[in-house]
């Protein structure tokens, strides 16, 4: 009897203790689409998570689940996180959009942050980076560097974000090289090294000497390294381990400042549902070091382009630009509005092939 009482008291005290702890600590959840070791997209999100931990120390507790499929499983993972006491949940893939909205409706007290989507609610914010700004710089370098005039592009899914990247890269490659052609392969996955490597190999076999990728692993760079004399770019992360080989630059996602901001907002009680879409200027998109394989003048041009975009002097989608069917999209000097960009479902003039639907 005495022992039972002792145990109960202990358990009660423990319960109180954890309860008290839960009040000071903010539990933040992260749902990842790939493994944290993918070296690309998810790796950068996880780096930002670690930055949050470093910034707030004991005041936050972060949890994450990696390799979550885009579908009903995502909903279960998010629900479990919310039930486990997470007060802020970052869902970091486009395909988590509907699951996030569904789960958010069930937990009005939990704040959600969904990356790259367009559906919001009172407790759901969206955030994304203007990757197309980085793509413009890649396109410029690719157009200058290609000798076969064939640039291979590995797409993930035909969603606006990916199409925007293709268009931006193409516009800027064509600008410096009117003969340039894009060959596009859709992998239908964000992360499948075998498929990505196959796609890169096929593009190289068909004459591409520059490989651009919008998938998350380093496999296309590995394939490019094996084929030799091919250049490529780091995607989402610097992928600098390939810097002595094919990787000549990269687009780096820098989520840490945003994540720290949003965690702070929840702590201060100032969190509101917002839509953030930042680019090179605010630092959400970084351009990885351009290696010596790129001629100095091309490097200087690329850096100047980066400067102009960062300062807002130049927008990668500036007219005159036609759509693929030849109809006018942007008149001379006209700049694309964010609405069109967010819903982009067409290629610009000059790209061959159709967008699968």
């Amino acid at each position, binding site marked *: 009897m005495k022992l039972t009482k002792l145990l109960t008291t202990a358990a009660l005290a423990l319960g109180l203790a954890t309860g008290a702890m839960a009040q000071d600590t903010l539990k933040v959840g992260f749902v990842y689409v790939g*493994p944290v070791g993918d070296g690309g997209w998810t790796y950068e999100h996880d780096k930002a998570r670690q930055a949050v931990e470093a910034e707030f120390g004991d005041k936050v507790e972060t949890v994450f689940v990696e*390799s979550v499929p885009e579908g009903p499983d995502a909903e279960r993972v998010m629900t479990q996180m919310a039930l486990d006491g997470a007060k802020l949940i970052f869902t970091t893939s486009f395909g988590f959009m509907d699951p996030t909205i569904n789960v958010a409706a069930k937990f009005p007290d939990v704040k959600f942050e969904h990356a790259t989507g367009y559906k919001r609610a009172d407790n759901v914010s969206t955030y994304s980076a203007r990757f197309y700004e980085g793509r413009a710089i890649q396109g410029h370098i690719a157009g200058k560097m290609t000798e076969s005039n064939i640039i291979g592009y590995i797409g993930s899914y035909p969603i606006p974000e990916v199409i925007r990247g293709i268009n931006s890269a193409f516009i800027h490659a064509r600008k410096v090289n009117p003969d340039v052609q894009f*060959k*596009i392969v859709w992998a239908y996955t964000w992360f499948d*090294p075998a498929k990505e490597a196959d796609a890169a190999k*096929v593009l190289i076999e*068909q004459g591409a000497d520059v490989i651009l990728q919008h998938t998350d692993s380093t496999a296309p760079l590995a394939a490019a390294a094996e084929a030799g004399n091919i250049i490529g770019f780091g995607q989402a992360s610097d992928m600098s381990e390939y810097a002595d080989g094919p990787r000549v630059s990269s687009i780096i996602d820098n989520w840490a400042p945003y994540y720290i901001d949003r965690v702070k907002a929840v702590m201060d009680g100032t969190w509101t549902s917002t839509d953030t879409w930042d680019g090179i200027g605010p630092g959400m998109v970084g351009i990885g070091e351009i290696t010596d394989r790129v001629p100095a003048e091309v490097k200087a041009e690329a850096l100047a382009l980066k400067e102009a975009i960062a300062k807002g002097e130049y927008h990668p989608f500036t007219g005159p630009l036609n759509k693929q069917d030849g109809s006018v999209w942007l008149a001379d000097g006209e700049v694309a509005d964010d609405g069109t960009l967010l819903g982009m479902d067409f290629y610009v003039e000059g790209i061959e092939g159709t967008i699968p639907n």
Partner: protein
Amino acid sequence: MDLSSINPILLLASLMVAATPLLLAAVGELVVEKAGVLNLGVEGMMITGAICGFAIAVNTGDPFLGVLAAAGGGAVLSLLFALLTQVALANQVASGLGLTLFGLGLSSLIGQGYQGIRPPPFPKLNIPGLSDLPVIGRILFSHDLMVYLGLIIVTGVWFMLKYTRAGLILRAVGENHEAAHALGYKVVRIRIMAILFGGACAGMGGAYISLIRVPQWTEGMTAGIGWIALALVVFASWKPWRVLLGAYLFGGVTVIQLNLQAAGVAIPVEYLAMSPYLITILVLVIMSADKSSAPASLGRIFHASR
């Protein structure tokens, strides 16, 4: 659309590469099933082989040691299956499924810290004269050694099953284990050896993906090839040459559909993406109309007391 950009020589060459992991895993499973054992753990053994091979290759810097370790890793995992099904007489289907799940988990565990690392390069065959021949040189004589190893194993398995006493005994065990037992053959011992062989082959198939085809390590990177290998064995009516044909067909259509996409062919990508599965199954179903059937004791538990 520009079909001229597809180079048929490179296409044939990359077809052989794309087919090799599937070929290795399937021919191993063929031997296992010929011995009357249904091991559904191919995927698990492949992925375990993939990480064992990768880890050893990275740590020793020798890709050949990596391949050996992969074969060893796959075989050790299959030994677990052998103990469960041959000694403890557990259900083969359940044990095989368990083996796949276990292998996937185990490989993730071993693989911690190996993501994003580049393995040592695998040497390619280069026979002066032969490798430089136009067309044939590129298709037949300039692959990595594993491609040839796969072909050698298929030939060896075919020869053993058809022309040797060992093959006859293996088939006898698979067709009627009681009769084989009555004749004095060690059914359990023979089956365990077949299972180990299947595990080693699956492991090498996995290592081919992580060391040569991709080459890097990521969780779940075998992406269902093990299951396709299982299906392939059935559709190939347990005949080694048909396994080879099916694997090359699958590899070929996989490569062609990507080539067609890159060439801008106006077939919806979804159809192209499912075509390898459809075409391989279709062709093998048509071919399997000759009524060759599964080994009669396939999947049945053997105990000497009965």
